[in-house]
């Protein structure tokens, strides 16, 4: 009797021990420390990476950036485009155990729209009201048809938070967010780590094999990589493209990648805050000469080891919204020279403001060298990020190579940069016809109709060259070879559903 009891005890102990040992922790190195973890207030790209594990959204994207349901099961749009009916899953609970239902969706969307200082308010500007139809159905009422809304709901605006927790926490919600994602929040030490653990009651719990996720902000790319190589991290985001050779040579690493949704280009100040008489601003021929002086492939090869994708439009060539007929222009020194002659200028001097980091400065240097051969005397002004933002906003710059992280819907990459009153229109460009086309594209009922409008707008604003699109970054997610099932998504988020860590 005693012996068998002892045996039983041994078996139980062994089982407990094995279970304890089988705890898997995934350590992910982020390039920055995320800001506040409140979906309504958050504003950083890295914050979105953490949210991907923490807060499920009404919709999500697949690896080709097509929209798929997540907390929703589907949606229909009324004929006039003013009412969107969304059906919801009925098996979802928040991390605090309260049900994720239509009322919670109404609450979250209202909160995203109305919370003071919300960064989602502008994304939901066309949303007038949300009504609860029944427990699993909501209706979204719009002031004007707005096709990009579903894409917004596949990002932070569509993250549903627990109303109970949000009400209780008030302003402090972001310090301990309660959502309905695969992992729940455990703790955060500012500038050090964010810890999440598997949520047992997740509606798709069978897809979640990792017990614990730790996000560690490590801004220095060399240190981030060293941590990955030494095994202190399991995965990192945004490695230096020039380190890819080292990583590929390391048999312990695998490097999935995907072109990002964003772009990198040169914004030229044509009329911010007022029309300028500098030849680069005043004469489109000078800007065309400048574009023809640049060789996009040289920038990509010299600065990024040829790892990125050259482009000439606000969306990458891999996007369904890319206009194939408008090809990437090749460098043409003779034509550029001729254009400067036509414009009646011999040499043009201007200042190129560049962000104060080695990569951006090298991009600036390559542009300086290439354009110098044609007749542009470029002075590089390496400017710290916060200062550059300020100068850009005030219009105190000639040209600034700057990028955009990209949005799922093309509207997010185009409208606010090219419309006269666009929030991010820093070049001061204004063409009412472009405004009209881009506004119509928002309201058009089908993707075919929208594509056509974006094409027409592109053919109008691109030749004006107030933004010269250069290249698109490729997102790399180097990880240890014993991680299985990870896929890179073009929005750069790290989704851990289906990811498995082999026994170590």
């Amino acid at each position, binding site marked *: 009797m005693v012996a068998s009891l002892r045996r039983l005890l041994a078996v139980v102990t062994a089982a407990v021990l094995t279970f304890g040992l089988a705890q898997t922790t995934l350590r992910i190195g982020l390039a920055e420390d995320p800001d*506040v973890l409140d979906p309504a207030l958050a504003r950083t790209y890295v914050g979105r990476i953490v949210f991907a594990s923490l807060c499920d959204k009404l919709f999500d994207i697949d690896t080709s950036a097509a929209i798929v349901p997540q907390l929703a099961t589907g949606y229909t749009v009324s004929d006039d485009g003013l009412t969107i009916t969304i059906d919801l899953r009925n098996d979802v609970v928040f991390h605090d155990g309260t049900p994720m239902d239509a009322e919670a969706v109404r609450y979250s969307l209202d909160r995203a729209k109305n919370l003071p200082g919300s960064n989602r308010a502008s994304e939901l500007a066309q949303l007038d009201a949300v009504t609860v139809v029944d427990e699993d159905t909501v209706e979204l009422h719009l002031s004007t048809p707005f096709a990009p809304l579903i894409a917004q709901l596949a990002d932070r605006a569509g993250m549903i938070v627990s109303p109970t927790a949000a009400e209780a926490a008030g302003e402090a919600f972001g310090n301990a967010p309660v959502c309905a994602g695969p992992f729940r929040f455990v703790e955060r030490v500012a500038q050090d780590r964010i810890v999440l653990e598997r949520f047992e009651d997740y509606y798709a719990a069978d897809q979640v094999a990792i017990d614990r996720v730790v996000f560690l902000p*490590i801004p220095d790319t060399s*240190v981030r990589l*060293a941590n990955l190589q030494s*095994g202190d991290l399991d995965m990192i985001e945004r490695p230096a493209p020039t380190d890819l050779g080292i990583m590929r040579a390391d048999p312990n690493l695998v490097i999935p990648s995907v072109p990002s949704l964003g772009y990198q280009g040169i914004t030229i100040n044509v009329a911010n805050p007022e029309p300028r008489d500098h030849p680069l601003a005043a004469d489109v021929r000078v800007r065309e000469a400048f574009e023809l002086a640049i060789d996009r492939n040289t920038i990509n090869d010299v600065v990024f080891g040829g790892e990125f994708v050259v482009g000439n439009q606000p969306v990458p060539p891999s996007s369904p919204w890319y206009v194939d007929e408008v090809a990437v222009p090749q460098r043409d020194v003779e034509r550029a020279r001729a254009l400067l002659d036509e414009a009646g200028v011999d040499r043009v001097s201007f200042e190129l403001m560049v962000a104060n980091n080695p990569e951006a400065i090298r991009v600036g240097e390559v542009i300086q060298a290439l354009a110098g051969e044609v007749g542009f005397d470029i002075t590089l002004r390496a400017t710290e990020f*916060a*200062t550059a*933002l300020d100068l850009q906003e005030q219009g105190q710059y000639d040209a600034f190579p700057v990028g955009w992280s990209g949005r799922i819907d093309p509207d997010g990459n185009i409208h606010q940069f090219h419309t006269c009153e666009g*929030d991010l229109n820093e070049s001061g460009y204004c063409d009412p016809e472009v405004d009209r086309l881009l506004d119509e594209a928002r309201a058009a009922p089908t993707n075919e109709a929208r594509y056509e409008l974006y094409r027409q707008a592109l053919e109008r604003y691109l030749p004006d060259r107030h933004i010269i699109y250069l290249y698109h970054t490729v997102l790399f997610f180097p990880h240890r070879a014993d991680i299985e099932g990870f896929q890179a998504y073009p929005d750069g988020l790290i989704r851990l559903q289906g990811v498995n860590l082999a026994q170590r």
Partner: protein
Amino acid sequence: MLPFVGRRALTAIPTLFIVTLMVFAIQRSLPGDPALILAGEQRDPEVIAFIRQRYRLDDPIPVQYVAWLGQLARGDLGRSLRTNERVLDLIAAKLPVTVELAVLSMLVAVAIALPVGVLAAVKRGTAVDYGGTALALTGISVPNFWLGIMLILLVSVRLGWLPASGYVPLSEGVWENLKRMIMPAFVLGTGLAAVLMRQLRSSMLGVLRQDFVRTARAKGLRGAVVVVRHAARNALIPVVTILGLQLGALLSGAVLTEQVFTIPGFGKLVVDAVFNRDYAVVQGVVLITATGYILINLLVDVAYAVLDPRIGAR
């Protein structure tokens, strides 16, 4: 002794006042708008307006300054613009980390500098002296961040002996904590060790020539006793001064070292705050640092008085 300490403490008040004025003025004269940074990539004008109003960034600068002084008088350092955490809490969380790093670095520095400096002085002109000098020059010349990255590549990536970076609080295990602190403390300590060693060597040389050392030797004391008990103790006075003065260098060195080893300390806090124009945090950190600096120098003065009673009596 007490009046001496009191006098020194009183002079700290105007110094601190000037510090508040300077940190405020320098920060506000920097280009860059915290509201623009806070608003993120999207830069929604309504969000920007909300932030400006909420943190009173639109108020005239003197008004903001007086409001801040008022807060300070109530013992409140304000809240971080970026994370909305109380600056005092942030500092309370980060300070011990950097203090630990600084203390460990000083231990490393003293452990290297004391024997090498004394030996170099005693064996002046020999291979030991030249070797020590070369070591010191290397220590001063090699930049922190470079040494740090090289150490990570060698010790963590190649040899796999220590974790590459990060921080574990002492409460979660002394060894776990030390494992991650050894490399940063060594990196930070070597530069300081070099300075201390050079200083100790020259001050030892001076002391060794003095009459009382000759007297001690004449009394028949053994060489080691003369060096350690008589010469070294006197030679330490200028070294203690340097140690105090070097604390500033140590803190600024910690800024870089903490970046390289991703240690969530004071240095990292202030660097991130400066780049984000997180005014409240920068102000709080500078003020606390200045206070610490003043305190340390006060302690140094007191240490003098202990080492050399004539100083306190003056």
